C-alpha cells in the first residue's frame, strides 16, 4: 500500500497560516489604523503601508508583469486609499478592500498595455492556460506518463534549499493568466481563506476554486519539469 498522504486532512494544507500579515494578534488592527489615517496620522499610514505593500506589489506584478508599472499601480492604489478612506463603508475588511483596488487598477493597466503593445496579442486574462497534463493520460483515463518522485526535492524545505526552487515558482506564477496568478498568490502564498480571495477579487467561490486548481497544476508541473528524476 502506498505510504502516507492518503486520507489527508483536507484542511491541513492551507490551515497553518490563517493569520495574514494584516491580522497580527498584537498591535492595532487595520481598521484601527485606518481610523487614525483619517485623522492624518502619518505613523498609522506608515504601519499600514509596511504591513501590506509587499503583498500588494507582488499581486500587482503578477498582473501587470512589468516591475515599474507594478510600482505605479501600488502608488495609485495607496493614493486612492487615503482619498477614498472616508467613504469606506466597512462592508468588507480593509485588507480585502485594499487588494480589490490593487487588482482592479492592475487589470486596467494591463489591459491598456496590451492594447498599446503589438507584441502582446493576448488579452490580459490570456487564453485559458494549456493543460500541462494533457498528454499524461491514456484515453481510458489512466496514467500514460505516471509522475515520478522528485529528485531529492520531495519536501518543501528541499525545494527551497535548492535556490532555483523559488525562481521556478516565481517564473511559473508569472506565466499564468493574471487571475490564476492572483488567486494562487493570495491563497497559497499569503494564506488567505477562499472567502477573503473571493471578496478581494470579486469572483465566485466556484470560479476561485477552478482558477486555484489550474494554477496549482501549472506550478506543480514547473517544479516537476525541474526536479523529476525522469
Amino acid at each position: 500500500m502506498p505510504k502516507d498522504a492518503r486520507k489527508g486532512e483536507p484542511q491541513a494544507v492551507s490551515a497553518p497560516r490563517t493569520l495574514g500579515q494584516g491580522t497580527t494578534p498584537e498591535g492595532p488592527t487595520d481598521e484601527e489604523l485606518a481610523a487614525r489615517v483619517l485623522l492624518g496620522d502619518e505613523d498609522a499610514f506608515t504601519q499600514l503601508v509596511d504591513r501590506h505593500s509587499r503583498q500588494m506589489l507582488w499581486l500587482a506584478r503578477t498582473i501587470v508583469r512589468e516591475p515599474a508599472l507594478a510600482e505605479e499601480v501600488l502608488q495609485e492604489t495607496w493614493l486612492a486609499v487615503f482619498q477614498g478612506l472616508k467613504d469606506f463603508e466597512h462592508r468588507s475588511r480593509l485588507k480585502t478592500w485594499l487588494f480589490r483596488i490593487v487588482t482592479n487598477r492592475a487589470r486596467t493597466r494591463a489591459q491598456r498595455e496590451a492594447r498599446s503593445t503589438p507584441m502582446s496579442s493576448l488579452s490580459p486574462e490570456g487564453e485559458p492556460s494549456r493543460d500541462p497534463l494533457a498528454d499524461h493520460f491514456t484515453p481510458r483515463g489512466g496514467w500514460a506518463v505516471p509522475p515520478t518522485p522528485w529528485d531529492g526535492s520531495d519536501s518543501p524545505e528541499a525545494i527551497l534549499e535548492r535556490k532555483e526552487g523559488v525562481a521556478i515558482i516565481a517564473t511559473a506564477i508569472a506565466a499564468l493568466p493574471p487571475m490564476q496568478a492572483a488567486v494562487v498568490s493570495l491563497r497559497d502564498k499569503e494564506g488567505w481563506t477562499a472567502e477573503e480571495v473571493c471578496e478581494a477579487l470579486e469572483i465566485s467561490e466556484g470560479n476561485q476554486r477552478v482558477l486555484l486548481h489550474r494554477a496549482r497544476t501549472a506550478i506543480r508541473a514547473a517544479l516537476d519539469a525541474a526536479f523529476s528524476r525522469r
Partner: protein
Amino acid sequence: MMTCKELVALMTDYLEGKLSAADRSRFEAHVDGCRACVTYLNQLKHTITTLGRVPDEPIPSPVRDELLQRFRDWKKRA
C-alpha cells in the same frame, strides 16, 4: 471507479473539502491503491506548502518614500 485523470482533476476540490461524501469515498478508495496518484497528490501538497514559504521582495525604498511624501502632500491639502 474513478480514473486517475478524474482524480487529478478533483484534487483541489478534495483538499478544499468540497467533495460530496460519495466522491470523497471514491477518491480515497482510488488513492489507497494507486501509487502514481499518491505521488501526484504529495507533489501537489508540497507545491502548496512551498508556495507558502516563498519570500516577498521588499518594497524599494524610493517607492516607499514617495508614498509617504504623497501622504504628507495630501494631508496638507486636506
